[in-house]
């Protein structure tokens, strides 16, 4: 027996086939009683245009702008700050430094003739770079100096919720999609700033269970194998995340320690200083007349720009020396995925990958030639330009084709990586300098996956519902979990210092979802029912549902440690609240997010 839904879908397929086969004339269709919906199959192109929104960006000339490198964030600890507001702050991890981020509107030049108002953390589009070090707890003082909500015109909402993706952070500092910070002039007179505190200690700092002595951080406790490396800060205002991040609310964060030191003469000797370069990839669209950024505020499934930018410039160039560089590449979204290749003279050039999803890999992936990067993923790669000659031009390109509405990868299609529209960045090789840096073969092993620790298998279903996107059948409501009855008995309770298997299922038929879980890195142990061999595992905060490998089911091993702080629990019942959501920010803004809580 077919369900009614299956019958309806079958009827729809038949209808489509008939229409596509043009078995019927228009008049026939009318006689058959087909109504409105049929009309656009005769005008498919116009539907695609309507959904892809508006016309193309103005023409641009690639490789005319030099790649900007973000400046270090401003250190300034003169802002009001209360240790008691933060978990584990006064007791264990008092703040050692404070960064000040002023969020403001400014004009930015993406390339010649394309200037647009943008929003940024600090003075530059794409923000400053925030450098942190394990053992040095820090604080972000975030100040919202955007125009007031009833003065700002156009896409983006000047209420902000900055989230550090994906640090081991107390819920009050996580910057989740709640309690956003209003701009200075707001009707309720709320403060326009907030402090976030980051312990800068590895997961496991309150328990040694399951951590071999050799991997316990001797100073702060915590599992050295849980070190986080390349992160980013981005806005999380519910229903406006896509537009706010697209408008510029993103910035890179690097975390160093005694091995990944930030000095290429010590520790692992990874390329450092001016040879450690963040690359924020983001596709944009510009108004053909004004040259300003445009965004389709009526898109539900995805949004693609037709101009590729890196660090806020359309297809920039970067002069490089003949030596090794570390590039920390971030897919800044909103919807586009990339398959990155390094190209010269029509051939792929090998490079090394040392991190996946911001976490150093157990072993370096040496001499790879392509790298898939979904929204919000980070990958650190090392390119050695020594093998190239002075004057060579080398290109970072993408050869992945997205479906026109940005809902996922167009699996059947390929594109030439050397076509100009696929080129992201041009490296201009010139000059030699000393290169003391090295590429280690191995970093730290993965934390052990111990199924005996697992206390629960938790199911998360992702799918479509009446044109919106759901998790476990529910659409996101940013307010419901403020309610005392919710906090007393949240539906998804995770025990502090326990482990779980999270089973992800995508039931949305061909749509791709980069699923993101706040707070904790997971290790994927099976995909579509097949176990992942230990040597192929990695830590990640993005789980690729769908994609070219059509992953509909995934099992992830997760540990939930340290938070909430037991001393803080008496002060607030709202102390362990986190979210899981799709990081195609269009899906996220249209319901695909759910709350889960860590409870003592």
């Amino acid at each position, binding site marked *: 027996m077919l369900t*009614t*839904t299956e*019958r*309806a*879908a079958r*009827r*729809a397929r038949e*209808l*489509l086939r008939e229409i596509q086969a043009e078995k019927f004339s228009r008049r026939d269709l*009318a*006689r058959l*009683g*087909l*109504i*409105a*919906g049929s*009309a*656009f199959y005769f005008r498919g192109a116009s*539907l*695609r245009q*309507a*959904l892809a*929104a508006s016309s193309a960006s103005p023409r641009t000339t690639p490789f005319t702008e030099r790649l900007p490198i973000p400046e270090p964030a401003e250190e300034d600890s003169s802002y009001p700050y209360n240790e008691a507001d933060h978990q584990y702050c006064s007791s264990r991890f008092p703040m050692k430094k404070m960064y000040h981020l002023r969020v403001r509107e400014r004009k930015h030049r993406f390339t010649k003739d394309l200037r647009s108002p943008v929003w940024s953390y600090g003075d530059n589009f794409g923000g400053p770079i925030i450098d942190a070090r394990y053992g040095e707890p820090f604080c972000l003082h975030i100040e919202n100096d955007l125009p007031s*909500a*009833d003065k*700002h*015109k*156009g*896409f*983006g*909402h000047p*209420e902000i919720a900055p989230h550090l993706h994906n640090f081991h952070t107390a819920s009050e500092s996580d910057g989740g999609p709640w309690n956003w910070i209003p701009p200075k002039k707001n*009707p309720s007179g709320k403060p326009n700033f907030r402090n976030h505190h980051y312990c800068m200690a590895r997961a496991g700092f309150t328990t040694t269970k399951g951590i071999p002595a050799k991997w316990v951080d001797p100073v702060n406790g915590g599992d050295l194998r849980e070190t986080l490396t390349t992160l980013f800060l981005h806005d999380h205002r519910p*229903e*406006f995340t896509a*537009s706010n991040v697209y408008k510029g609310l993103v910035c890179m964060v690097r975390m160093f320690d005694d091995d990944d030191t930030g000095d290429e003469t010590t520790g692992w000797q990874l390329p450092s200083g001016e040879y450690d370069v963040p690359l924020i990839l983001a596709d944009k669209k510009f108004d053909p007349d004004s040259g300003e950024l445009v965004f*389709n*505020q*009526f*898109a*539900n499934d995805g949004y693609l720009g037709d101009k590729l930018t890196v660090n806020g410039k359309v297809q920039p160039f970067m002069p490089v020396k003949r030596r090794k560089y570390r590039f920390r590449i971030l897919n800044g979204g909103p919807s586009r995925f990339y398959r990155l290749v390094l190209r010269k003279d029509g051939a792929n050039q090998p490079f090394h990958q040392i991190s996946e999803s911001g976490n150093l890999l157990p072993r370096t992936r040496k001499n790879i030639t392509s790298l898939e990067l979904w929204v919000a993923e980070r990958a650190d790669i090392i390119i050695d330009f020594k093998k190239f000659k002075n004057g060579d031009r080398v290109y970072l390109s993408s050869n992945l084709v997205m*479906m*026109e*509405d940005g*809902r996922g990868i167009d699996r059947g299609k390929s594109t030439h990586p050397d076509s100009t529209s696929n080129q992201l960045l041009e490296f201009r090789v010139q000059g030699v300098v000393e290169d003391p840096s090295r590429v280690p073969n191995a970093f730290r092993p993965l934390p052990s996956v111990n199924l005996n620790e697992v206390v629960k298998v938790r199911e998360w279903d992702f799918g*479509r519902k*009446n*044109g*919106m996107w759901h998790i476990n059948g529910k*659409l*996101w*409501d*940013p*307010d*419901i979990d403020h309610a005392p009855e919710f906090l007393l008995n949240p539906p998804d309770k995770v025990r502090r210092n326990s482990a779980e298997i999270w089973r992800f299922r995508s039931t949305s*038929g*061909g749509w791709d979802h980069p699923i993101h879980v706040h707070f904790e890195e997971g290790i994927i142990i099976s995909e579509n029912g097949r176990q992942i061999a230990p040597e192929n595992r990695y830590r990640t905060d993005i789980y690729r549902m769908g994609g070219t490998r059509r992953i509909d089911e995934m099992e992830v091993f997760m540990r939930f440690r340290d938070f909430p702080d037991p001393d803080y629990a008496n002060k607030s019942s709202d102390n362990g609240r986190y979210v899981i959501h799709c990081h195609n920010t269009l899906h996220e*803004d*249209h*319901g695909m997010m759910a709350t889960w809580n860590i409870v003592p």
Partner: protein
Amino acid sequence: MNRRTLFTGGGGVIAGTVAGSALPGAQAAAGASKPYGIPDIAVVDQDGREYRFYDELIRDRVVLINFFFQSCGDTCPLVTENLRVVQDALAERMDRDIFMYSITLQPHFDRPHILKDYAELWEVKPGWKFLTGEPDEIERLRRALGFASLDPEYDLQLDNHTGILRYGNDRLGRWAATASLGRPAWIIKAVTSIADVA
């Protein structure tokens, strides 16, 4: 139970019966698109009054927009009931600076008199309009407002467009969406967060 309705309509209904129906201004409807590509088409409300969709219903207003159809058995009645709670809570702002539009997905069937019965059934007050129009034009509107999917199979099922509640402030050029079956308290907070101070 979970009956899905396709754009194929109720079966056997001849599309020609609505050709040349009671829409005087329809021929001139294909006017230029307004900001964000909203087509300024002619629409008719439950009282048979005709409007330019953008110029007369959207311009400078704060609005909530959903798509529905009268014969929809699953989602739409729940949505309409939900929006009625929103309407009642926004009482003094409705028809003053906040407006709600429920647009039919079946303009062939949902003629003004049917919308009138529907609106009366739900005790709709001023400021909330149920809108229909020429099918081709309503179809344009549906796509332009993002109540459509590029997945053709998904797009054909009417119920796949009933879960979205778009809200926007035209004066500010700011738009977003939330769940049409979301809690009224959140819907009200969402829309008033982009509205001018009351």
